[in-house]
């Protein structure tokens, strides 16, 4: 059976859904923009990931500079 009666409640739900959708899209856009800025910002992104890497070892870096 098709819904033929439009209640004020339906308008309210629709407005809420659209509002939430717009908010989420803007939030995703902001996080995406932030990610691009952080990644292209030039700061080092290297961190310890369970394997030894000489570039993360200050002693090794000092030894090489000598």
């Amino acid at each position, binding site marked *: 059976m098709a*819904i033929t*009666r439009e209640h004020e*409640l339906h308008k309210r739900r629709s*407005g*809420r859904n*659209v509002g*939430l959708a717009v908010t989420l899209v803007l939030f995703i856009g902001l996080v995406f923009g*932030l990610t691009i800025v952080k990644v292209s910002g030039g700061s080092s992104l290297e961190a310890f990931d369970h394997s030894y890497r000489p570039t993360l070892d200050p002693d090794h870096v000092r030894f090489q500079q000598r």
Partner: protein
Amino acid sequence: MTDLRTDISYATPGEGSFSDYVALLKPRVMSLVVFTALVGMLVAPGNLHPVEALAAIIFIALGAGASGALNMWWDADIDQVMKRTAKRPIPAGKIAPGEALGLGMALSGLSVIMLWLATNALAGFLLAFTIFFYTVIYSMWLKRATPQNIVIGGAAGAFPPMVGWVAVTGSISLEACLMFMLIFMWTPPHFWALALFMKSDYHKAKVPMLTVTHGRKATRAHILVYTIALVPFALATGFTAIGGPVYLALAVILNLMFLHGAYAIWCRSEMQAEADGYATEKRVFRFSLAYLFLHFVAILAEAALVRVPAYAGFAAEFKLLEVF
């Protein structure tokens, strides 16, 4: 077949409109937070990418909105009794208290973590502390316990420029503390001037406001004392890195006018005030709004003017407190 039901009341959880949920975040308070935090960010030494700055402002505003929702959840019983707040979403039955709590908690966590990720950990911590201070210290504890609630609770509104500053610099400095003190000391005379002419029903809600607990004469004296205490902080800001001659000139005029207004309120009796419909109290309240706004505009103007080399050299002679 829930869509065909027409007996669903407005108070059914999850059935408020989008604007009801926005109202829960106190958008007017958010706009003030955005302005002061933005000034704090713009005048802070350092560079923040525009996208990071935009994100920081949005998440600071969201944090303020979260504390607004938590405040409405906790104060729903008070809001229901008072005429001014009876139309808020929870007492009006548009949003269930549990929803406000959930939204407030979720937005608190989101805003703090996102501000931390967008800027730095100290800014995130300060935002978390601001939300905690407004919700727990002010709303849950002080508001119903002491007539000095406005004084200490004012700190919650004073944090945003400091959070904005810290978002850029990563540390707290004298300038950030003075911007904090400017709002902190301004809040009591601003609200008590309002309390004098707004015959609010705080007593009905059992909220100890100074006008009710200590009387209106004592409130007038408090306004004068706190305005006098505010002046040194407003003027000292002019001698720091964010101040300068333009700020100082404006601050001197504004503080003299505020002192004059506070003195006029102190001199008046309740009979005089009632006779002219609280004209002086209303004038001082309106002026207090302009007072704070213009101080922050002047701080912003100094940051813009200092880029002019001729002005920068002249302004440097005023910055006696820059060494701190």
